């Protein structure tokens, strides 16, 4: 970071859980599986670490067992550190905290943690966006502009469904946010929030403590929207590759888009790697008769059948004569021999017995719940 300022990262692992309830039934948004070996929280965490942020708090609410299991001590992100490091912040961790309803309440609940940090600035991020973002450039832009809050957005074309699950900004020529629409009814090109914000710790303190005294809960509605003209809210445009996940449909497409090599090259940069939990899987094994085309394959897979246009997470088994197309099979899925599967999203440890036929459609993939036996 050119400015040599200390920055604290705060990740909200549960925001947007309700947009993709199938996948978040037993986990947080942050622990949703993505891209053959990752969890969504790997992206904000890796981005923070790669931007020189070595103190990160992860705010959780419910269903966080899988998240704790994934993060462990934070070692895989180089966050198992005596100075800073990874801090898990569940609700009820302080006397004054409880089950929160929005970002502001959540921040108030962990205020004792934030207070003790020596950071000058705070980066807030949700877990709904997979991207490779340099936060240090955003912090620098924040300092240079003298903003109270800097928001990160992308200019993109949204469907009506996507817009209703997004926050959209109106931005003037100076890059200042002049309008904030939360879950708007619109579609087409707009400035969509990536749910990442930079503010100084002092400013954050003011709004969090004020919100607590007034019973305000929502950062977007009670701060960004209600105080658009009182505060200097600047918008930082992110032009890189990103996927914002707000439904099963967008989840499916975000995974499928990784089959495009140019997209992977923008997301997985060698100088800013995306870290994740190590599982010590052996290499993937392709048997005689395996036929794999245009697919991402995790380590530890054993493939004896045909796999086309698929994302296979670590440790998936595909039996002899099985044909799998346009599907996402999460960790530990076992597909029996001679199955025919198309447009399926299988959660962890699903077992599909021999000779089964399962078909979804590309805009409505067939979801198989965690541990299901078909």
């Amino acid at each position, binding site marked *: 970071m050119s400015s040599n300022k200390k920055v604290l990262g705060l990740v909200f692992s549960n925001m947007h859980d309700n947009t993709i309830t199938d996948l978040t039934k037993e986990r947080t948004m942050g622990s949703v599986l993505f891209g053959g070996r990752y969890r969504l929280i790997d992206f904000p965490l890796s981005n923070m670490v790669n931007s020189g942020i070595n103190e990160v708090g992860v705010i959780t609410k419910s269903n966080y067992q899988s998240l704790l299991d994934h993060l462990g001590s934070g070692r895989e992100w180089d966050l198992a550190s005596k100075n800073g490091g990874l801090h898990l912040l569940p609700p009820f961790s302080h006397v004054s905290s409880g089950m929160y309803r929005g970002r502001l309440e959540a921040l108030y609940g962990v205020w004792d943690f934030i207070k003790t940090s020596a950071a000058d600035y705070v980066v807030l991020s949700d877990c709904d966006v997979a991207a490779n973002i340099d936060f240090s450039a955003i912090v620098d832009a924040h300092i240079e502009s003298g903003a109270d809050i800097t928001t990160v957005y992308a200019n993109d074309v949204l469907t009506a469904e996507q817009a209703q699950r997004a926050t959209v900004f109106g931005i003037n020529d100076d890059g200042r946010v002049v309008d904030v629409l939360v879950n708007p009814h619109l579609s087409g090109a707009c400035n969509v929030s990536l749910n990442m914000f930079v503010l100084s710790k002092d400013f954050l303190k003011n709004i969090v403590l004020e919100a607590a005294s007034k019973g305000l809960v929502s950062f977007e509605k009670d701060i960004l929207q209600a105080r658009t003209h009182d505060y200097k809210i600047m918008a930082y445009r992110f032009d890189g590759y990103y996927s914002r996940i707000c439904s099963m449909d967008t989840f499916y497409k975000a995974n499928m888009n990784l089959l495009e090599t140019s997209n992977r090259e923008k*997301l997985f940069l060698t100088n800013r790697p995306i870290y994740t939990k190590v599982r010590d899987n*052996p290499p993937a094994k392709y048997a005689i008769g395996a036929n*794999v*085309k245009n697919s991402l394959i995790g380590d530890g897979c054993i493939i004896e059948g045909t796999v086309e246009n698929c994302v296979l997470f*670590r440790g998936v088994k595909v039996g002899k004569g099985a044909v799998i197309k346009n599907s996402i099979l999460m960790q530990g899925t076992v597909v029996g021999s001679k199955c025919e599967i198309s447009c399926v999203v299988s959660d962890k440890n699903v077992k599909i017995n021999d000779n089964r036929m399962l078909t979804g459609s590309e805009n409505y993939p067939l979801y198989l719940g965690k541990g299901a036996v078909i």
Partner: protein
Amino acid sequence: MYTKKECVAMLLAGGQGSRLYALTQDMAKPAVPYGGKYRIIDFPLSNCVNSGIDTVGVLTQYQPLVLHDYIGNGQPWDLDKMNGGVHALPPFQTALGAQWYKGTANAIYQNISFVDRYDPEYVVILSGDHIYKMDYNDMLQHHKDKKADATIAVLDVPLEEASRFGIMITNDEGDIVDFEEKPKNPRSTLASMGIYIFTWSKLKQYLIENENNPEEDKDFGKAIIPNMMNAGEKLVAYAFDGYWKDVGTLDSLWEANMDLLNPNIPIDLYDPEWKMYSRNPIMPPQYIGANAVVENSMITDGCVVEGTVDFSVIFEGVKIEEGATVTDSIIMPGSVIKSGAVVEYAIVGENCVVGSGAQIGARPETFDNRDDWGIAVVGHNINISENAKVLPKQIVSENM
């Protein structure tokens, strides 16, 4: 303060592995990549951890940089311990001067004080040259049951191969009564696997005597074992019947990799009960392209395969371009095989670039005289230019 350990492992990893030629030019043999995402040393280290041995000294000497980096603090093997864990033990300087390790026995002798810190009853001596999965605890139990002073793991080998090994001659009880190094006419087919368990107090005594006798080789096979036998100590054989392979030559390294692709050969890396640990690459999943053909192979994270891969082991981060063909070969981490290149019966080292249209190796059936044929080898960090040809048996250690 160190707490007592029942058993400490000492892993001999200082050898040059000169018969691996270009592959060990810059790294010790135990650091040589194997099996798609491992290095040879992962096998004894993982075996230790899976056997409940959490204190391991790794004796290094030849080109230790890559090996030391790889072992690090031992975290990938769960060997980053407050008490115990993995320790790299290169030769060091003392008040009496500095010395290299003069042999396997001398390497342990120079580290007696390391072992003594943990005050163990037993020491298991391992080498970093072999691929196998073994529960050292079972062997230790055998050592205890037999009230042995030394236990040597042995493998029953075919008679025609016995003359390549150290051969143990045992009585009906399994006690070792004689020992022959690479005999012309073997009297037994029990080959030493280079895995020993000693009662530490006994071993220490023989190490000190060996050191004080300037006439003797400072070696387990040549001095310590014969000395113990001659003195009437109880030496027993521990029969092992699993997969075990010495990967000391280019041919055996190639074969040991190919064994992983043969479902009839019992080396299973996918057994959740006996996981093999390694330092994992931080790379996205492998991508198999729309026109790729991949069969009968092992491929690792970070690879991009657009060409044809058959009967091969491909390490992390390798790129195989469209129109390239890799068969019956091993491609080590980070190498690129350009479009139109053909790699057959070859080992390509780490971070190489094989140019378009280049030909590495050839199939054995294209040779009338099989003696003229052999595995082609490209060392680490080598560029092979477009349309260049590397012949079977050729070992490339400079750009061409």
